[in-house]
């Protein structure tokens, strides 16, 4: 079987699993039964505090190339932005979004506009709150840092494709005693955010955050589908190791 057909089969099974788990989530009773991610619990607390204080949330989506490898973490970041914007849209100081790619900037404006419209606060929406600040990783960091200083930001969420440059942004947020949460798909970025961010999202936690922020049943269902594949991969790795060990 060709790799292309194998990939197509994998995607079809993935979609079937998501559909099946969505039906399951819709019909099941009780809570969502997801393991706790402390970073997300603290994020929800930080959003509440920012709304009460009248301070601003800053969502940094990174310099992800939407036509390249950075697209998936940027999409996960947009899902988080949608949930944050819905909660904070009624605040005196609505969230500000920074991005480092033209398409991502346009999408973030769309997400903000949609969130405001759906919460009935469409008239409060200001398109200039979603900004393109720099198109390379370091120019993005240089453009995002003044936003933290100048706009009364109390919490900075870095969700997207980031490399080590995110340490500069967390440093700027720490200087204002702000809350920082960061998640990226890059291994170098994850090593840095483990040390630099107050609340790191490691590995797949960035992609799981939507489910924890109640972005919809499909997010929870896709999380369960990922778990099924993860267990299959673990079984495959262990089986491969056993075959190699015992000849």
């Amino acid at each position: 079987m060709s790799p292309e057909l194998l990939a197509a089969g994998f995607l079809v099974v993935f979609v079937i699993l998501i559909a099946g788990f969505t039906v399951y989530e819709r019909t099941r009773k009780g809570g969502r039964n997801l393991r706790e991610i402390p970073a997300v619990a603290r994020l929800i607390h930080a959003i509440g505090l920012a709304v009460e204080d009248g301070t601003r949330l800053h969502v940094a989506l990174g310099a992800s190339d939407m036509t390249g490898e950075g697209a998936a973490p940027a999409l996960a970041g947009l899902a988080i932005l949608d949930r944050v914007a819905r909660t904070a849209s009624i605040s005196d100081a609505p969230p500000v979004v920074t991005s480092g790619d033209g398409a991502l900037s346009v999408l973030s404006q769309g997400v903000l506009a949609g969130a405001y419209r759906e919460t009935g606060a469409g008239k409060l929406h200001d398109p200039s709150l979603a900004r393109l600040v720099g198109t390379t990783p370091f120019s993005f960091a240089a453009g995002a840092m003044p936003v933290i200083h100048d706009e009364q930001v109390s919490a900075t969420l870095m969700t997207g494709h980031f490399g080590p440059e995110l340490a500069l942004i967390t440093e700027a947020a720490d200087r204002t005693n702000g809350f920082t949460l960061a998640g990226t798909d890059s291994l170098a970025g994850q090593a840095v955010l483990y040390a630099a961010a107050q609340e790191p999202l490691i590995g797949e936690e960035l992609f799981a955050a939507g489910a924890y922020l109640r972005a919809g049943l499909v997010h929870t269902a896709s999380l369960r589908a990922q778990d099924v594949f993860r267990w299959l991969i673990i079984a495959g790795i262990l089986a491969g190791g056993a075959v190699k060990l015992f000849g």
Partner: protein
Amino acid sequence: MRFKAPIVSTAVAMLSGLAVLLLLLLPTGLDALYAGVIRWAAALAAVALLVGLVNLVNVHVEKSSGGGSEAVSSIALLAAFGLTFLAALFLGPNGSAAGVEPVNWLFQYVQVPVEAALMALLAVSLVYASARLLRRVPNLFSFVFIGTALLVLLGTSTLATGEFGLISELVTGVHGWITRVPAAAGARGLLIGVALGSVAAGLRILIGTDRPFGG
């Protein structure tokens, strides 16, 4: 029948995504069509960049009229942007005037040094962040993290070049084991999680449940 904008945008996103996926994965023999769709995406990305730049200029025009240090930074940004944009517009990215290539010159003598300076600052920030990690989260994992980082750094230093006998051998051995076994295994685990999450994020767009376009 009048469609609401979100329905149209969702349909366009789903259809174009599925078309690219099918053209990529199935042997349809429509390679020219696939290449054409990708070219369209690249052109749209360039248009989106232009929209983003207009947004950037708008934000800084507004800030520059506010006064204070913010205004000075915004005026500097607008001046640099205007200079670079006009040079590229009239001379092209590699064009020259009076023996100077302005866009290349700005890139080589302004953009690169500024980014290099930020990279140097990053080194300091990382050392500070490591020290702060031990103060903020003084648990076993933090000590393992810092200890491993130090051991790997030692493994790439002159201590590992063989001039120090047994110490060099020990450092080289530990460095090699860390990078080959726990670091490689951990990286694979993280990448598997990221890959599955990426697929799920893409599929949610393709089946129309995530609509990051105001839908």
